[in-house]
């Protein structure tokens, strides 16, 4: 799938600071793009617009030529957020996070493999979000975003709460997974080294 952002401008409040100003971005199928910019440059805002969480002030986002706002049901563009504790319902057990993913009805193979590769333990699934660490919680969010119909993955500083070894393992798995399944990746990070390692091209802002 081809994701295309055309002439995107955005501000959070009317008359407020211009967060994005006429931004254009195209991600071809299977492409891996890294975005690097100082804090406050609108990286997260751009990802939110690309995945339909925010509507731009002007411009439009297209998915295979169709406006992203027109997509109903499961959206092939899935975003993994920087703060996993805000991405899961604090009053539901973690097994429900996994259950919400888009898994094949006739086989658990994909789900089981992703859980295994991410190192998700069975005992964590019976816990509430407050009972696990940020890193453990983020694995659940990553697994949920890797459903069978996901074609484009947006990753917003997803490993900042992890130690370097775990970060490396997690990215190794993600890159292998998206390469195998032909998923497009747009990753945001402050680490140039990381983006150089996992992406085909890195866009530097600011």
């Amino acid at each position: 799938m081809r994701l295309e952002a055309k002439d995107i401008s955005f501000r959070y409040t009317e008359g407020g600071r211009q967060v994005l100003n006429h931004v254009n971005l195209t991600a071809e199928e299977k492409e891996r793009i890294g975005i690097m910019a100082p804090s406050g440059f609108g990286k997260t805002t751009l990802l939110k617009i690309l995945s339909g969480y925010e509507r731009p002030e002007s411009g439009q986002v297209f998915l295979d030529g169709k406006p992203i706002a027109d997509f109903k049901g499961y959206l092939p563009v899935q975003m993994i957020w920087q703060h996993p504790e805000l991405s899961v319902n604090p009053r539901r057990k973690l097994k429900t996070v996994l259950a919400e993913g888009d898994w094949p009805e006739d086989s658990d193979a994909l789900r089981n493999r992703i859980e295994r590769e991410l190192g998700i333990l069975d005992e964590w699934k019976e816990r509430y979000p407050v009972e696990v660490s940020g890193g453990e919680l983020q694995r659940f969010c990553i697994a949920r975003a890797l459903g069978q119909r996901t074609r484009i993955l947006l990753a917003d500083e997803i490993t900042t709460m992890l130690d370097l070894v775990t970060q490396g393992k997690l990215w190794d798995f993600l890159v292998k997974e998206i390469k195998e399944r032909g998923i497009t990746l747009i990753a945001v990070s402050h680490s140039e080294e990381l983006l150089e390692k996992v992406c085909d091209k890195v866009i530097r802002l600011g």
Partner: protein
Amino acid sequence: MTGNKRRMTAICFIGAVVFLSTVTILGSFWQEAAVETDFSRKNLAPCARYLFGTDWMGRDMFIRTVTGLSMSIRIGLLTAAVSAVIAFFLGLSAAVMGRFVDGIVTMMIDLVMGVPHMLLLILISFACGKGFWGVTAGIAFTHWASLARLIRGEVLQLKESQYIKIAEKLGKSRFYIAFFHMAPNLAPQFVTGLILMFPHAILHEASITFLGFGLSPEKPAIGIILSESMKYLAMGKWWLALFPGLFLVLVVLMFHCAGQAVCRMIDPGSAHE
């Protein structure tokens, strides 16, 4: 020493439930005894035989108090539960089912809150034939509005949370989001609303009965007991109001305690306490 807070909470909850259940069950068995008159023992002060004394018709005030509280608990529970369920579904649907439904529910809330409470209560109770079911319907259909408004506001706030928006992008239906994501987060408001509604319902039952549009005067309801006792207070018969009044407060406190315990038990944040 802090001990196991969850265990203490569970003990509080069980204690409160046992107390309320005992009063409710005993009261329903003592319906006959509560109206039994014996003029040879009238106006007796509290003693070993009559713990709460007797009234001007020689009726045992302990039995009357327990029976009255039993009636109040049943009415209070039923009306508070019905009101809370109405409030929950209307509040939830207003915020989830789009602007049209929201408009209708908001209008209904304004309508119920705009009409003087007592007037609407009397009207519904009278239309439903007074008595137990009249009072129950009256209280149930007039007390949901403020909780519905609170739940609607809470749902509107929840709609903006990240995990709800993620669920939408995962293709989850409005029904799924409402019942699996929003409902668990509304539980504290729901339980608190239910608890606050309970004493309100009991007091309204007493008021409407006092005005003659509620329960029949021969029923040993707590409202009737208290209003009747007023005539005898000046004559030094303090026990006629003190014990029923104290036990009414105790029942309300027990219900509050049980509600607080439920709130704590369902809060995942208290799992390690």
